[in-house]
């Protein structure tokens, strides 16, 4: 067997024969046209219109988010600026095929140069160009293969037109060799719960018909799997399917140790769904939604109304609210207007709130009022705390406003290392594993080119989490986890072994984690954590934990 690595989307696992997406046709040659520029222009106009209508029709069939994307692509095909660019090339005696290819390429280069989100939209444009050129050549447009049996689709990157119409009964899993965690393939795989691994660069060598295992939880494609490996993967897929329908119980280990399972929410509207999926409370309520859509801070009344709605959904239960976490990927003009070279290292989180303390004071006022009006157990925490001094600043202020339980998020390595002192003052700590990983590995978590560093299994991250777990035990204070790491069932066991006392995650992940926790005692969880800690890197930590868990 060989293992090909990429970024897994979700936690599923699947197996089956590979079917590759047809490679794009070769680029048209720059030979002079043999017909007049007007005749070429008429051909291109027809082809562009036909492709636009086809994309619109596909959009209407797919509906939802896919329809928006496909309609945008149809507009790209008929874009007036692009038509001018094509016209200029036709006037120089180029063929329609080459003019289309070259004009699209110039826009593509512009988007790629802008990087990030816009760079990933370049794939949308490539897809439109391929379709127009195929139409001009009179050949079928590149698209999803149809081998006549279920398959693992392997492609460079999937265009929205392809993903929108994937027949889920036929597609067992998706593997792309390009594209990052924010590519269309990734977004749609999440939306439709398809097992997917993106950016698996070495998957270019996969052949049609060969059997592979696609393990999204591990981000690994296994080629030439043994019968044993195939069986294990099948068992996991079956276990996952049955966990989804298992009865909902409070989170606990095999020996009865309680591990409350909480929900991450970004809006009070999600509360009912979270309760239905068995959330025992809220481990992370993000308050940004109140702020991101406005050019100024919401009023105390507006905030109180939103918090009251949330707290009322969880009577008698714990609800951890994080005060505004602005900056970096969530800039807010009224908090910080300055341009920063490295916003992730800039004036964000508690630093930004401190600089605009009235916003923090208003938020604490609204939270205390909502708490008084409801029966939930309100905990409030500050984001991006880096020092003991910031901890004291926040907890003092929160208690001044009558907040009964005030804590901090541990996302910066400095606060993990000093957790024993931070937890003297803070009532609790909650570890944000996404940011903790980004800061520990010094890799921007929004950047596709360094996405492979963003793995919370890294032993350096696990060691920091152990520091916080130990500090929690020594001070008798709870330590929660509220990053995506808690949604990875085996990692959830490791986190509990490292000292986490509660886990908070997207509500859809609760069933998987609940089922896995029930398989291990606290002593086993500690052994599994010890095995992971002894590894050299994230991949070997994961496999060491897997071995320890099956002993």
């Amino acid at each position, binding site marked *: 067997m060989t293992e090909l690595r990429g970024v897994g989307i979700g936690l599923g696992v699947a197996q089956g024969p590979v079917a590759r997406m047809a490679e794009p046709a070769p680029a048209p040659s720059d030979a002079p046209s043999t017909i007049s520029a007007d005749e070429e222009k008429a051909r291109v106009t027809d082809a562009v219109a036909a492709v636009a209508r086809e994309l619109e029709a596909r959009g209407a069939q797919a509906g939802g988010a896919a329809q928006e994307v496909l309609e945008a692509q149809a507009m790209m095909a008929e874009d007036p600026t692009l038509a001018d660019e094509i016209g200029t090339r036709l006037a120089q005696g180029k063929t329609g095929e080459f003019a289309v290819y070259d004009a699209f390429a110039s826009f593509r280069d512009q988007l790629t140069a802008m990087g990030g989100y816009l760079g990933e939209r370049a794939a949308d*444009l490539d897809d439109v160009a391929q379709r127009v050129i195929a139409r001009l050549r009179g050949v079928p447009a590149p698209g999803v293969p149809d081998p006549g049996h279920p398959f693992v689709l392997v492609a460079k990157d999937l265009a929205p037109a392809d993903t929108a119409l994937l027949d889920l009964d036929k597609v067992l899993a998706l593997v792309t060799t390009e594209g990052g965690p924010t590519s269309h393939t990734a977004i749609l795989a999440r939306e439709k719960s398809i097992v997917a691994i993106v950016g698996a660069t070495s998957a270019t060598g996969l052949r049609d018909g060969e059997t592979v295992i696609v393990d999204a939880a591990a981000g690994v494609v296994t080629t030439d799997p043994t019968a044993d490996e195939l069986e294990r993967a099948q068992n996991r897929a079956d276990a996952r399917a049955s966990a989804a329908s298992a009865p909902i119980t409070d989170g606990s280990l095999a020996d009865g140790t309680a591990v409350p399972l909480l929900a991450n929410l970004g809006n009070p509207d999600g509360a009912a769904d979270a309760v239905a999926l068995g959330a025992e409370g809220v481990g992370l309520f993000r308050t940004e939604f109140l702020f991101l*859509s406005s050019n100024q801070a919401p009023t105390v009344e507006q905030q109180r109304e939103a918090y009251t709605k949330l707290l009322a959904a969880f009577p008698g239960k714990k609800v951890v609210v994080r005060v505004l976490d602005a900056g970096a990927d969530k800039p807010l003009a009224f908090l910080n207007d300055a341009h920063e070279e490295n916003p992730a290292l800039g004036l964000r989180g508690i630093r930004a709130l401190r600089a605009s303390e009235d916003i923090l004071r208003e938020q604490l006022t609204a939270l205390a009022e909502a708490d008084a009006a409801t029966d939930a157990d309100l905990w409030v925490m500050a984001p991006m705390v880096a020092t003991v001094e910031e901890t004291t600043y926040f907890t003092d202020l929160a208690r001044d406003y009558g907040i009964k339980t005030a804590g901090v998020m541990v996302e910066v390595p400095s606060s993990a290392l000093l957790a024993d002192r931070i937890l003297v003052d803070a009532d609790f700590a909650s570890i944000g594993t996404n940011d903790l990983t980004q800061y520990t590995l010094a890799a921007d978590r929004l950047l596709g080119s360094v996405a492979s560093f963003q793995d919370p299994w890294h032993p350096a991250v696990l060691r920091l989490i152990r520091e916080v777990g130990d500090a929690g035990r020594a001070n008798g204070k709870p330590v929660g986890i509220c990053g995506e790491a808690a949604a990875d069932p085996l990692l959830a066991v490791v986190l509990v072994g490292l000292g986490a006392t509660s886990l908070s995650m997207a509500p859809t992940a609760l069933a998987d984690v609940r089922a896995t926790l029930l398989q291990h005692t606290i002593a086993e969880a500690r052994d599994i954590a010890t095995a992971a800690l002894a590894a050299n890197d994230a991949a070997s930590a994961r496999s060491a934990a897997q071995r320890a868990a099956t002993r």
Partner: protein
Amino acid sequence: MPPISRTVRIGSAHGLHARPAKLFAQAAKDAGIPITIAKDAGSPVNAASILGVIALGIEQGDYVTLTADGDGAESTLDTLAELLTTDHDAEA
């Protein structure tokens, strides 16, 4: 009638990419008169061109200048300005 211009601040949390860019370019196209959009002091591009609009790389909080020329220019600019200052992602 001379062309008229208006400067507005972008309200969409994700700037003028993807869905907001599509809505804007579609509205500009449907208006049926020449309209341009420029970011800050940059050179204007055809507002009906989704690619031209996306390539400006407009983010939330940026200022853009719309210019329209022809019948109903005033009311067209009203509609487009409204589109740009609304946060479309917040509705979803």
